[in-house]
């Protein structure tokens, strides 16, 4: 019998430390919610988290929770519960998985962190529609269900150059949130604390960027699949010292790998860029698939979306507004094309895989001809795979595998 070989991702030792930091974070949140010692805010991934931290809120990120539902492959059983109350199977499967989990009284936190019974109850819900409108509807549901206010920023979209007018608009919107948040927190905003949060977030960003850029090395010491896991502190703890301390440790380990010539994938023979969301329930499977093909998926737009060079100690609110507007997902196609071409060059990419996620058009940049335009300009081949972030009913593993194997074959033969 022709056995399929199994290659596994090399373990990153810093992961143990990350798991500890994440556990502290979740226990801290749980304590805040159960004892009422600190107010709890729920925040969308690139919402005004720094402001919430400065006001002393413990911050929960529903998207992070939804990604956990995906990664633990529990989401597909939960999504139908949200579908049944009127949330279409075609909308964000983070939203439907998270609401489904709430409806069924389920959270993976309970299993991972003994003592935690449920997600922390919020005192306020804060969104930024810079990524999509689904987040606003997501918070709106909880707002109705829990009787908690939902406030946020309605961001411009399709932004080519981020202009002063854009920044003024978002700055004013962030400022407008402050009185409400102060009322809920029961404290006045301390500008020095906000400055500190912004500058810690900036430092976190710089370290995370350096971590991602270790992948420039050949062989790359890290894969996209590792990055999707190790970006957790940058998502939930940016603006805190723990995230900074963590990325220093991770960076040192990866730099050591580079010095030792150790690649994340043995015998790396092709270098792939991943555009779009990960398929959370298939991280390991995809990681093994590529490793078996001696191919490293080493860079992505997705993991690079937690780099915010604009955070500025001197002008925290305005710099937050700028940082939230500079996100890839907010930008015009012209900008996106230029960005991807820059990444291809920087990471010396041999091929791009676009994940067309059925329930997230916002992170699926394969729908308006962008892959063809990038390919025509760069000559770098591309492949679009159909899938989803959380709804595994939308995935054909066999088709994905055949497509990816054929693509890597094509790259190898094109040389």
């Amino acid at each position, binding site marked *: *019998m*022709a*056995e*399929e070989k199994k290659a596994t991702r090399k373990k990153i030792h810093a992961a143990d430390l990350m798991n500890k930091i994440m556990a502290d974070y979740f226990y801290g949140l749980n304590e805040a919610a159960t004892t009422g010692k600190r107010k709890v805010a729920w925040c969308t991934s690139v919402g005004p988290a720094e402001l919430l931290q400065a006001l002393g809120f413990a911050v929960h990120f529903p998207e992070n929770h939804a990604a956990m539902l995906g990664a633990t492959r529990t989401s597909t059983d939960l999504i139908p519960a949200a579908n049944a109350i009127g949330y279409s199977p075609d909308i964000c499967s983070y939203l439907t998985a998270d609401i489904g989990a709430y409806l069924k009284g389920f959270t993976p936190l309970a299993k991972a962190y003994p003592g935690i019974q449920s997600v922390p109850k919020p005192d306020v819900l804060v969104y930024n529609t810079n990524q999509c409108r689904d987040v606003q509807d997501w918070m709106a549901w909880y707002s109705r269900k829990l009787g908690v206010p939902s406030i946020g920023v309605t961001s411009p979209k399709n932004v080519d150059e981020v202009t002063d007018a854009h920044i003024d608009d978002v700055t004013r919107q962030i400022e407008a949130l402050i009185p409400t948040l102060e009322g809920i927190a029961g404290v006045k905003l301390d500008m020095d604390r906000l400055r500190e949060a912004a500058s810690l977030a900036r430092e976190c960003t710089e370290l995370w960027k350096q971590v991602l850029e270790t992948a420039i090395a050949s062989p790359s010491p890290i894969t996209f699949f590792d990055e999707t896991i190790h970006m957790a502190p940058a998502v939930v703890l940016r603006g805190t010292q723990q995230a900074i301390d963590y990325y220093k440790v991770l960076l040192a380990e990866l730099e050591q790998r580079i010095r030792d010539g150790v690649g994340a994938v043995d015998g790396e023979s092709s270098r792939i860029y991943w555009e779009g969301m990960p398929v959370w329930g298939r991280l390991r499977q995809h990681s093994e698939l590529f490793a078996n093909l001696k191919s490293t998926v080493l860079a992505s737009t997705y993991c690079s979306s937690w780099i915010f060079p604009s955070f500025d100690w001197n002008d925290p609110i305005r710099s937050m507004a700028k940082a939230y507007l500079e996100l890839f997902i907010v930008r015009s196609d012209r900008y996106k094309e230029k960005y991807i071409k820059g990444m291809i060059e920087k990471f010396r990419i041999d091929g791009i895989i676009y994940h067309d996620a059925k329930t997230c058009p916002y992170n699926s940049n394969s729908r308006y001809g962008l892959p063809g335009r990038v*390919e025509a300009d760069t000559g770098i*081949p591309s492949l*679009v795979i*159909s899938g989803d972030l959380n709804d595994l009913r*939308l995935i*054909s593993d*066999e*088709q994905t595998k*055949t*497509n990816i*194997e*054929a*693509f890597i*074959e*094509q790259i190898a*033969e*094109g040389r």
Partner: protein
Amino acid sequence: MSTPVFVGLDIGSSRTKVAVIGADRQVLGHAVRKSGTDFSATAAACLDESLEMAGTRRDGIAHAVSTGYGRANVGFVTAESKTEIGCLSRWGRDRFHEAVTIIDIGGQDNKVIKLDGDGRRASFKMNRKCAAGTGAFLEEMSLRLDIPLEAMDALARQSLEMVKLGSYCTVFSATEVLENIRHGKKVPDIVKGLFYSVVKRVLEMDSHAGRVVMTGGVVAHNPYIVEMAGEMVGQPVILPEYPQLAGAIGASLYALDETDPVGIRNNIPAGETNG
């Protein structure tokens, strides 16, 4: 010992195809069977049938390559396995010395592969998750209409007034077919409409560069589909010899490419010959 042969086994979701070629790249033997549930046994049966046709036996095999959904399940160690897309491209590179677009209609999925003038694969696309335009679609419709698959080509050719079906979706198409039956439409006109829908769906998948070639079991049994495709693309579409074997032949060409003859002959379990 007889002259060495090179074997390609294409274990598809619906049919298993085996091609045996000689060093001169000519097809010496071939076989096609339903893949069934025991891929390994079917592959072995097809292998022996095609070897017999080629006038040789298992010990004549210099090298073998497998492809298709069941490529890892052939029941014996092949030199290597390749994707269907790779094998179709390899076949196209051997047969055509110009830019071509290969459109393969399989049992479960369709593929559009573009090769440049040097025979290099420029791009490929597989259909999305639905069965629109695949062999499975025609099979489903033949069941609905209660007519044998083999009878479809001749029926479609009798049509005087084709029925147009609009939907992408196989289930919706079935409803449309029932609606047309209710309205008294003639079966040949419906079958031609089904063929048209298959052609339209596969032609819509991608743009076409150079000459267009069609392969796969569906066109092997329904050459009228190829004629219709020719009318739609505005140039004659090539129906090659052995359209259903293109992938298997491609795999056998990969086997021939191997210079290092680590044959499979010692690894084939005996007795697995009941298809």
